[in-house]
């Protein structure tokens, strides 16, 4: 069987998987009815917000300013900034806020990574509830009150996570991430219904203090400590809820290089944590459906990328060979062939192309419509951007998502197998297969 034919069958399989995932999400959303539950809290609990910061002099002022404006009784609020050995002016800037507001405390420690800074802050804190907040993120004013309610509505809830949106959309990479984060928020909505949230993101997740007493602190050697602690909590049957109305803004990577670094870390962390916790989670929806789909996507995206790249190279090569054997006679190939085609032949060719590619057009139209529908529903929660701008972001996302995600996943797999050492912040990652083999031998 010809390789092109094999790739055509693979494409059909990918189409079916994508159709299944989209269909599930669509039915879920159409069926989704938000439970309107409200509760009046008579006495607010004491909350500690831990802000780990490493070289965040550009963002820390803004974050602390926003935190000081939170709608929450200030006598019940404690903001702890942990400067993780920054080499810039982060500590001094934070200290100015400490002098200005009596509920802000600033500590400094040797660089040891985000998780170690979080643990340091948690140990210094006094709140019944602990909020983790990346220094490059800030919440809307009512977020804390909105999220705290979840613990009172359902006392079994141990962790509440917010909806994260991108702060800036100035570069193409950030416009792309706007849709990416919208999809993450969407998937959290679905995962929440399945009681299967498996990441407690850095920006403004709230923990009951007893969570750390029960399952321990953040894993300081883990490159995605937010996923690790969520899976650990799941392994201990702790309940995680998603609060879609709580909007937290985060500064996303501005360039491809920084996005690449972030996503490789995320995917490597996913692989490590999945391998570690796959047999420890009792929730079958999480272990089989949610994580199953996440793995499936991490398989089909690179396969789809390989198919797309092969098809592009194959077509380019065929066309290049045609030009080459024609001595690059561009006039004859493009101009003369157009002149020789009369209008009816031109129309006939277009008609034939549309008919023969009909099912691809139909599928593209179907997927695009579904995507648009998702975004329209998502806009119930996000109205900061004009719809025309959102359409542009969708276009950018659809254009690049396969290639970017494919590159990130394939690179992560490469590092997982052959990588010797990678560094993020204060953490060094050496958990590749080649290193394991070296250690065994």
């Amino acid at each position, binding site marked *: 069987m010809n390789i092109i034919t094999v790739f055509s069958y693979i494409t059909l399989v990918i189409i079916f998987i994508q159709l299944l995932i989209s269909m599930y999400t669509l039915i879920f959303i159409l069926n989704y009815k938000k439970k309107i539950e409200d509760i009046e809290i008579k006495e607010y609990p004491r909350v500690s917000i831990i802000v780990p910061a490493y070289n965040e002099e550009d963002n820390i002022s803004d974050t602390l300013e926003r935190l000081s404006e939170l709608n929450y009784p200030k006598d019940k609020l404690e903001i702890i900034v942990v400067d993780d050995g920054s080499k810039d002016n982060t500590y001094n800037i934070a200290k100015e806020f400490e002098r200005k507001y009596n509920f802000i405390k600033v500590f400094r420690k040797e660089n040891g990574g985000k998780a170690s800074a979080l643990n340091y802050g948690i140990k210094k804190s006094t709140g019944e509830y602990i909020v983790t907040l990346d220094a490059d993120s800030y919440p809307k004013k009512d977020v804390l009150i909105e999220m705290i309610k979840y613990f009172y509505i359902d006392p079994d809830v141990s962790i509440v996570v917010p909806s994260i949106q991108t702060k800036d959309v100035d570069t193409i990479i950030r416009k792309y991430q706007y849709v990416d984060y919208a999809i993450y928020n969407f998937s959290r909505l679905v995962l929440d219904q399945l009681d299967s949230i498996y990441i407690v993101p850095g920006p403004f997740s709230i923990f009951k203090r007893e969570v750390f007493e029960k399952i321990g602190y953040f894993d300081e050697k883990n490159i995605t400590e937010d996923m690790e602690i969520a899976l650990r909590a799941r392994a201990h049957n702790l309940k995680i809820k998603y609060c879609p109305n709580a909007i937290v803004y985060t500064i996303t990577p501005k360039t491809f290089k920084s996005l690449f670094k972030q996503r490789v870390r995320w995917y490597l962390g996913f692989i490590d944590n999945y391998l570690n916790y796959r047999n420890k989670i009792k929730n079958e929806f999480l272990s089989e459906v949610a994580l199953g789909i996440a793995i499936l996507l991490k398989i089909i995206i690179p396969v789809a990328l390989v198919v797309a790249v092969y098809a592009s190279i194959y077509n380019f090569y065929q066309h290049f060979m045609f030009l080459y054997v024609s001595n690059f*006679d561009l006039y004859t190939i493009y101009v003369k062939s157009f002149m020789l085609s009369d209008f009816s032949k031109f129309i006939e060719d277009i008609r034939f192309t549309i008919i023969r590619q009909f099912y691809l057009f139909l599928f593209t139209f179907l997927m695009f419509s579904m995507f648009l529908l998702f975004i329209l529903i998502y806009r119930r929660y996000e109205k900061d951007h004009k719809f025309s701008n959102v359409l542009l972001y969708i276009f950018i996302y659809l254009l690049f998502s396969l290639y970017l995600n494919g590159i990130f996943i394939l690179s992560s797999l490469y590092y997982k197998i052959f990588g010797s050492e990678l560094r993020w912040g204060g953490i060094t990652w050496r958990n590749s297969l080649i290193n394991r083999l070296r250690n065994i031998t």
Partner: protein
Amino acid sequence: MMDNRSIIKLAVILSVLSFSLGVMIGYSIYNHILNKVFEDTNQIDSLVTSAYLFSLSKNMTCEKEYEDFLRYLKEKIAIVGRKLTYLESPENVFYNKEGVEHIKSQYFNIQYLHFIMMNNYIKSCNVSNFTLILYFYNNDYCYEECNKQGGVLTTLYLRHYYDLYIYSFDSSYQNYFIQYYNEKYNITTWPYIILIKSDKEYLFKGFTDLETLEKYMTT
């Protein structure tokens, strides 16, 4: 509100149904095109056959109209050729081998009839500016080389649109005249080109570049 299991079941059912529907539509479209090409081929076949029979029954007419009619037939045949390329393209998961082979066989017959008419016209009317090319390929043995040769012939055809007629044949087909040529010219390597110009035949074994073919066309 439906529970999660019901949503998953419904999603699987709807996905299978819509995917099957998509596959069926794709299959129907392919067969629709196959039937359309089959009809087109039949239509051109009867046109070419009647023109051929007419040319046998009368003395050859050397009028401009007849030459235009032959060119018109050439363009019609070329359209069928382009559609056949799609029907047998490797990315097509609905490939109907029997149907395509039947049309291809008929397509080669039509081309050959057209070639005979052109050849008779050139000889009877003493036309010297026309070049005829019989191009033999065999995808089982020369996929890349034959693809390249196809590119050369396409460019040649566009450059000399009004005085070049190219007829391409798959040597692996059992049509009588194809086998006849295979034996007569001992065609065992592909691409194989027979260029006919001013009553002379020039043979080219293997890939032949644009300049070489053009040189023989203009001598």
